[in-house]
């Protein structure tokens, strides 16, 4: 088992390196760097000035070396200008040239400075991940139990009316992308002019102008049902359909197995058959799916956070990408890779744990 985890971790590190290198390469294409120079120094720079700015800020060093700098395995660049002032990657306003360490990269815990927010990347990342963490938590709390319940209920008696209704619901939700469902939900529940809010307000059932809030900005300071409900449901809906369908497929298959018949012929009641005999076997496949949903949720998070103006990881990623914020983008990609790979690891380990047939000796 330990060997397995070690090997998987190794693979994880390699993947992370490869992926960040790709991002590094893309964000450091010459046009992007020129844009960066102009936005950092002055928009009206001549081409020569841009070149010298880039040179004096270490951007003309070979790509691999600069990637190494970012990682923290290659000493950071230094530049001595005409007046003898030394600048460098690791030298900053609060760190003098002689006190600065040779290397300052991710390995040293220094993620650099965001060019959009003018703040350390680590700080921005921590804050936005915190916000997204809450969002994810609530999405999971809503999504997983609902999806499993729907899947199990429809799968345990295949072909019944309950099954048909729940399956239709599940298919409808997976077929609707978040940017559609999000907008619909806002219009129906979170708009002062359309949907049910005006009617409720007229009847005096709600005190504000809308039932749910159409933006989640206030949830960053205090989460309430009314400001967080719509974004959570928007993300969860899509996942619910997907996981429910997996669970249903797995459940219907399990229900036709001989050991279910054995249990039935032992006199076990239907409820007990579901709980004691079918559930664990039926959950093996969906468990993997749920874990693989995590990275996919990031995707929904990007759309929903933008839609509801909630400044989490997805929102930050959009800002960073839109403004070619090299350091922030790199950090975001590291986080994304880690999320994908860690959930995969958990899913594999969980699979082994749930399925005694492949439990390691």
């Amino acid at each position, binding site marked *: 088992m330990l060997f397995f985890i070690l090997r998987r971790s190794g693979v994880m590190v390699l993947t992370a390196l490869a992926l960040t290198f790709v991002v590094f390469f893309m964000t450091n294409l010459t046009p992007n760097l020129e844009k960066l120079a102009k936005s950092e120094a002055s928009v009206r720079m001549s081409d020569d000035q841009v070149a010298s700015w880039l040179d004096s800020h270490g951007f003309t060093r070979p790509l691999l070396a600069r990637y190494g700098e970012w990682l923290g395995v290659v000493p950071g660049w230094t530049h001595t200008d005409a007046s003898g002032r030394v600048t460098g990657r690791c030298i900053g306003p609060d760190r003098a040239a002689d006190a600065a360490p040779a290397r300052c990269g991710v390995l040293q815990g220094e993620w650099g400075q965001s060019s959009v927010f003018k703040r350390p990347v680590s700080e921005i990342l921590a804050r936005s991940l915190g916000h997204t963490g809450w969002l994810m938590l609530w999405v999971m709390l809503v999504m997983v139990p609902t999806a499993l319940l729907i899947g199990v209920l429809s799968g345990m008696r295949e072909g019944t009316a309950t099954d048909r209704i729940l399956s239709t619901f599940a298919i409808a939700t997976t077929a609707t992308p978040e940017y559609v469902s999000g907008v619909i939900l806002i219009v129906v529940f979170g708009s002062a002019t359309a949907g049910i809010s005006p009617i409720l307000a007229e009847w005096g059932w709600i005190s504000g102008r809308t039932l749910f809030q159409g933006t989640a900005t206030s949830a960053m300071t205090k989460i309430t049902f009314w400001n967080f409900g719509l974004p959570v449901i928007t993300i969860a809906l899509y996942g619910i359909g997907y996981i429910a369908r997996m669970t249903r497929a797995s459940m219907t298959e399990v229900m036709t197995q001989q050991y279910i018949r054995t249990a039935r012929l032992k006199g076990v009641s239907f409820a007990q058959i579901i709980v004691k005999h079918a559930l664990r076997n039926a959950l093996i496949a969906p468990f993997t799916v749920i874990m693989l949903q995590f990275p996919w949720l990031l995707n929904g998070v990007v759309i929903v956070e933008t839609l509801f103006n909630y400044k989490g990881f997805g929102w930050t990623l959009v800002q960073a990408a839109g403004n070619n914020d090299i350091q922030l983008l790199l950090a975001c990609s590291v986080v994304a890779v880690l999320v994908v790979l860690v959930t995969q690891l958990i899913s594999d380990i969980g699979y082994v744990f749930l*399925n005694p047939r492949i439990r390691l000796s």
Partner: protein
Amino acid sequence: MTEWDTSKPILEIENLSISFFTRLREIPAVMDFSCSVMPGEAMGLVGESGCGKSTVALAVMRDLGRNGRITAGSIRFKGRDLTHMTEDDLRHIRGKEIAMIYQEPMASLNPAMRVGDQLAEVPMIHRGLSHADAMAQARQIISDVRLPDPDRILRAYPHQLSGGQQQRIVIAMALMAKPALLILDEPTTALDVTVEAGIVDLVKDLGRKYGTSMLFISHNLGLILDVCNRLCVMYSGEAVETGTVTEVFDRMRHPYTQALFRSIPLPGADKNARPLIAIPGNFPLPHERPRGCNFGPRCDYFEAGRCDAATVPMDLVPGSSRHETRCLRWRDIDWAAPPKAGRVTEKLAPGRLVLKLEDLKKYYSVSSGAFGGGAEKVVKANESLSFEARENETLAIVGESGCGKSTFAKVLMGLETATDGQIMLFDENVQDTPIQARNTDTVSKLQMVFQNPFDTLNPSMTVGRQIIRALEIFQKGTSDADRVERMLTLMDMVKLPRAFADRMPRQLSGGQKQRVGIARAFAGGAKIVVADEPVSALDVSVQAAVTDLLMDIQRENHTTLLFISHDLSIVRYLSDRVMVMYLGHVVEMGTTDQVFSPPYHPYTEALLSAVPIADTRVKKRRIVLEGDIPSAMNPPPGCPFQTRCRWKTEVPGDLCDTDLPPVKVMAGGHQIKCHLSDDILNGMEPVISMAADEARG
């Protein structure tokens, strides 16, 4: 429940009809079926595949699935009608009063639940025991079913047990609540004969110990004789004959029962002097049953105008104990008449040497561990095999699962290359030549017939086309027209109507498919045919026809037949020489007579004793082997059979534990791989003997 009288039948099925409703039509699976089981009695249910045995069993459990429905009749258990019971009432009967065991043990245990929990569940539901008490009882029952190390087994998951152990657990589970009626649906079909013998013994003992009544379903008449007091023969959804085992076996009064007995190889049958008599034709599908007697189209005694007039009722045979037959003419038939003399043929003398193996070895290396890694292990699938085979000869290779029979066939065919040793095919050395590198001539001379006729035919090509393909591959025939002609000749040879050439495989029955497989194998004029369990997937009545066919072709083409089988009855019937394998070793080899009579190798002795024989005159010594076949990954040191051998104590010292026995050549070239001394070997008693009384009537 208390007022139920023990002199009355515990289970009484009356005029039961069951149909399955599919989108296309109603399938009447069981019609007008009646039978009753008395307390403590074991009732057998025999019949060919698809005749409705399992459907009856599931109807008793009221578990026919969504599309199955009881359309008429009643099932009374202890006087209460099960057909009208509510789900809730049924729950109190299932598992507590009636328990059922079915065919595949692995599939009937929950893979994600420990064995102990699955067992303990029964008394927890039905008697409200606490988990601890239930576990204690589970532990007790595990030792009752003679499993070693109950504590380990309680904690094990099903996949950690062998097939035989799993089946014992399933039996234990059924017995947990001491049910009054136990239904066993082919409980041993998936198991090896020696394991089967152990399980059957166990079931009989436990039945006696707890006074459980049994409904025992099997297609194997020998097993029925072994286990049951009464039996009911089913044909196409109906009971055609029922009575006590001795009545039905020795004084049968239904033509189907008679035909069934004549088509199975019993001791005394001989491929030359007394060949088996196959039942002509095929089993009718439920919706294609003929008018009148279902068996009519295949019956030797059919009388037009009478047998096909109206539905045939059950008729009681006077002076018997509830012996009934569903035949209109049973009074007219001379039951003592010997079967119409079959074709008596001459035994062929063995011809020139065509195949010679010397010291053949085949090892596989496998890695263990779920995520790769783990230690490399060597599986010795075949250990120093040496033998020769001649033209016209049938050599049987016998052994239980995992003994290396199929590996040997693969090596011979060139699907795998040998690790070591020599294979001389005609005059060629082929041990290192894989099939791709063999020339067409060699390939076409050495052909194989597979166990499962369902997997080996291309489902989307007509039968004729498939045979023509084989002819093309073997480069036979000069033109397309010539090949079509040859194909039709081959169809004649395997006794398939020529019109079948245009059929798709799915339009053929199992036996017919197997014939196509045989036709294909002989397309290139095969000289040596390796038949890997060619009839074990087929019904008994069809088995006879297919074996007969193989023999006929052999006689005509002077083929050498290597017949791989675990069924000793059929081996005895058709082979000239027999090779017994155990864990990759040939433990005994000799002519059929030598192998089937003492001196035996201890394993052969046990194997012979384990084979159920459907003949009331046969007396067998019971030798039940303990335990399971060791895994080929982890064979015992010394003699491969030492873990289960009952003769081991007769060998001085610990020779059996440490040394691989040498091959001992006895009189007549009979080889035995055992440390036992000649005296002891020669002093062995026969396992099977005939109580030589009157011929069967």
